[in-house]
Structures are given as C-alpha cells and as structure tokens.
C-alpha cells in the first residue's frame, strides 16, 4: 500500500505556483484571486470527500458503536432494552453451538483455503511456463468459476453433493463400491462439500493473482537457477515463493477474512436454519438475530467475530511473512 504522503511534492507544487505570483509586490488582483482559490480548494476538498463521511457516519460509525452498546442489553427488537451487563457474552460462551460455529468456521477455512492457495500457486506456475501454448484459453477456463455468484456455486454444489444415492458424488462413490454419504448431515461430509465450493470458486482468482506476480519476476533468475542445475521444485521454493511474497500475503489476508465471514455456503447447503455440522459464526449470528430476535446476544457474537478476525488475520499475516524468510536464507547459503 502506497504511503499517502507519497504524492505530496506534487501538491506543494500547486501551492508554490499559486503563491509565487502573490508574493510579487504590486500585483494585488492575483493575490486576492489566489487567496480565494486556496480557500475554494479547501472547500471543494471537504465537499468532494463529504459523501463518504456522511454515509459512514450513518451506516458505519453509528451501527458499530451501537453494536458494542447492544451487546450489553437484552432486546427482542420491539420491546424496551434491558441492561444485562456481560450476560450476553456469558450466554454465547456457554452455548456449545457457538463454539461449534467457531470450530466449523476455522476447519472449513483451513480446508477451503490452504489447499486452494497451494494449488493456485502450482497452476500459476504451470501457466507461466514457457513450454506451453494456449495459455489464454486455460486461463479463461480456470478463471470462469469466479464469475459465478457464491449463491449459484453453493446451489450447484448442493446438488452435486446431494444426499440421494443418485447424487453425482454419491453415484461415483457407489460405482467404486463405497457407501453413499449423507452429505448435509455428516460432520466431515458437510465440511468437505462446503470447502469444495470455496475451493472451486476461488482457486482461479488466486491463480490469476499469482500469475500476475510471477510475470513480474525477471526470467534471468530462473535461467541462472537452471544453469546451476536447480530442479523445478527448487525453482518454486527458492525463487517463485520468495518473490511472490507480497502476492501471497495479499491472498492469505483476503482468504482469511473471507473464510471467517463465510455465510452463504452453509446457509444454502444445509437449509435456512443451518445445522451443527456446518454452522458458521456469521450464520450463528444471523440465526440469533433474525430467526430468534435475540439481538443482544447476536451483537455479542458480532463483537467476538470482530476480535476473531483481528486475531486470525494478524496471526496469518505473521506466519505468512515468516514463510519466505528461511527460504531466502537457505538460498543465500546454497
């Protein structure tokens, strides 16, 4: 992310140009004009940025503060609010389903994103190879799932992973002599199906980002490594991965945040109420608020989720940041 200060020299330029004539003695008219121009710029500046702050005051700041407030009250959305202190937090912390939702969110997050990012790097590496042609066609095919909406993906995969014996995945399992799985009601079946949705929709998106990153790596590095007899695996490990680090950081960050906010997939796959095998934190919050009208505990969940997101994104960024470093050191040694 570029430093906001970065472009200031340009702006001070404007001012210098504005002010220079005003310093010349005996030129009163330009002085007056420039003075008002400066004021006008200040006014326009505030005016042009004001819509965001107005909207954010109404739909951002106020709701966020109110969430923190509401978390300490019992409220059904209609009657009077009743102050309950930390009771809402006590309620959710004593609810096994709340912990289950956190567990599910994390497990699905790991199953859906970790293999996906690794596969995306491999596909991007293949697409970046000088040995192949028709790259744009492969790229198109691999990116296409991203164009589909999450809801559409969830519906299609709900049918692919349908509970019936005739469901697509079940038919394949039966064909190979296995027993059909009740996907929406089994602990790992549900998680596998939801992870598959996440995997399929996002792998192309991440591939494209990694590919952009790889195209920015100078080819000389690979040439030099090849001359030193580096295998493809070594090239990936010692050149591609370290050079891709900013891109990997970005994808890990967005994937982490996306995974912790997962909602549509379990909500569609297991039906509106959700079930314990697939319920996510956001789905738990949604159910509490809009199915049970328990807005106080739902707000408490929202606040816990906020901290979970902060903790996990910081942690993942920290870990990802370290991944490249030992590799770099090894490279120097070798």
């Amino acid at each position, binding site marked *: 992310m570029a430093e906001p200060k970065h472009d200031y020299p340009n702006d001070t330029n404007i001012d210098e140009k504005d002010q220079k004539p005003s310093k010349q003695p005996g030129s009163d008219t330009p002085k007056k004009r420039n003075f008002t121009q400066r004021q006008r710029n200040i006014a326009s500046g505030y005016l042009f940025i004001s819509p965001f702050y107005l909207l954010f005051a109404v739909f951002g700041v106020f709701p966020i503060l109110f*969430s923190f407030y509401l978390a300490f009250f019992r409220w059904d959305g209609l009657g009077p609010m009743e102050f309950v202190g930390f009771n809402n937090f006590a309620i959710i912390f004593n609810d096994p389903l709340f912990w289950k939702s956190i567990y599910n969110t994390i497990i699905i997050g790991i199953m859906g994103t970790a293999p996906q990012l690794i596969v995306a790097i491999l*596909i991007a590496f293949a697409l970046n190879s000088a*040995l192949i042609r028709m790259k744009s066609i492969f790229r198109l095919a691999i990116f*296409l799932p991203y*164009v589909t909406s999450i*809801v559409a993906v969830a*519906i299609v995969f709900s049918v692919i992973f349908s509970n019936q014996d005739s469901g697509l995945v079940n038919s394949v399992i039966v064909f190979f002599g296995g027993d059909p799985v009740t996907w929406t009601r089994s602990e790992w079946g549900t998680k596998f199906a939801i992870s598959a949705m996440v995997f399929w929709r996002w792998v192309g998106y991440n591939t494209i980002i990694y590919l952009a990153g790889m195209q920015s790596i100078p080819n000389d590095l690979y040439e030099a490594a090849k001359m030193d007899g580096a295998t493809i695996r070594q090239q990936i490990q010692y050149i591609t991965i370290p050079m891709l680090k900013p891109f990997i950081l970005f994808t890990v960050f967005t994937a982490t945040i996306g995974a*912790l906010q997962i909602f549509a997939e379990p909500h569609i796959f297991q*039906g509106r109420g959700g079930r314990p095998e697939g319920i996510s934190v956001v789905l738990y919050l949604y159910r509490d*608020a809009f199915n049970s009208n328990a807005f106080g505990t739902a707000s408490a969940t929202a606040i816990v989720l906020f901290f979970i997101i902060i903790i996990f994104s910081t942690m993942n960024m920290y870990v990802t940041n370290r991944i490249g470093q030992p590799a770099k050191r090894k490279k120097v040694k070798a």
Partner: protein
Amino acid sequence: MKSEKNKIRGAQFVIYSGLVLVSLASLFPFYWMFVMATNTNDAINQTPPAMVPGGNLVSNFEAVLNSIPFFGAMLNSFIVASSITLGVLILCSLAGFAFAKFEFPGRTLLFVFILGTMMIPPQLGLIPQYFIITELGWLSDLRAVIVPGLMNAFGIFWMRQYIASAVPDDIIEAARIDGCSNFRIYWNVIVPIVLPAFATLGIIVFMAIWGDYLWPLVVLQDQSMHTIQVALRSLMDDRVRDFGMILSGTFWATVPLIVVFLLFNRLFIKSITDGAVKS
C-alpha cells in the same frame, strides 16, 4: 541432446495434462448445471444420473418462472448493481480527486481513516444497520441496499492512487487559468483521464454487488424485491426439491454473467488482478 529434448517433452506432457485436468474440473460444474437444467427430475434422480443434456430446457425454466419472479429479481439485481456502480464511480473519483490534488487541513488523517474502515468486517454493524433501515422505512426497498452500498473505501483509495499518478498538475492549472471551477475541472478534465480506472473499479464493484447475499437477504424481505441471489436461494425451500428447476434458475442467472465475461474477458481479468495487486 536427445535426452534434453525428451525431458522437455515430458515436462510439457505433465504440464499440459495438469492444466487440461484443472480446466475440466473448472468447467464441469457449468456443464453439469446445463445437463440438470435440461433434464426431468426423474432422469436426474435415477442411478446413475443423466449425464447428457435432455429435452426439458423450456419446461424447467417455466417451472422456475412459476416459483420465483425470475426476471423481476434479475431486474432488481441489475438496478441495484448498476446504480451502486455508477454512484461509487462518481463519489469515489470526486473524493479521490480531492485527496490527490487539493490541499486541506486534516487530509492525511482523513485518508488514513478511510483506509482504516476497510479493516472493519461488515457484520460488525449488521444488526444496527438493519434497524436504521427499518427506521428509514426502507425494508424491502432497493434503497436499503443501494444507499449503504455507495460508501466504498477501496474505491476512494483506488481513485486517489490513479488520479495522483495519471493526472499531471499542469493540466489542472491550465484549466484553472481558463476559468474552470473545481467541479468543472473534475467533470471536463479528471473524468476523461480516469475512464480506464472507472472500467476497473466498475467491474470490481458490479461483481461484488451482484453477488452480495447476506445484506439483501436481511433487508429485502418481500419476494417482489428480492435480488436474484436471494430469489435463487428460495428455490431450495421446497421439501421435495426439483433439481431440474433449481438448476435451470441457477443456470439462466449465470449465463448473462458468462456472456459478458467472455466478451470482455481480458478487461475483466486485468481489472480483478489490478484491483488486487496494486492495493
């Protein structure tokens, strides 16, 4: 020499087969969607299920139209996504222009504040937002989705970076000497220069809003006001699921996006990568 050649052949074979496999896995669900959308429920429910397109294309879609207001929902989605996109482009380029080219007290702080808002998960304010919408009387009104959608911190950041690097100060100065007001400068000078950034940001915003699910689900409760995502989900409500009908709806809701994507795929992919990489 020969073994070197064989090695390259081998590598080519491995890479090609890997990519073909991955591409097929990417494309298969689309094919599957089409197969289901054209088959009767009986053909889908037999073991093994139908694997080739059947003759029920029209009747499955008629069943969709009987179940949900498909075209109304598509129209709602289109209204929401295009008004937000248009509004975001204007508001964000105005703010980006101000942050990039005007000197005013608190500019850095205000800009950093906007960046900071990007870190806040949208669910944190979800419940109070719902009550604000209720108070405004906007439940089941497209404004409930459009108005909050107009605040877009990423868009301001994006436009600021673009304007700071693509618009030389001299042009602004020249326009000023010609007597242009700041808004005239924005409209006649800045907007034409930032059109490429509009394309990028527009695609990103439109896609995000088109696919948005949780917020429309919460605030658009009347069936007539559903966006296509919310409407598609309600196809799953029947106790006995008609998969042919469900996937017909999903298929026809997906086709327009695929067509637009295939027409503009280079711009599309470039927009998505630029939006990710440059931030």
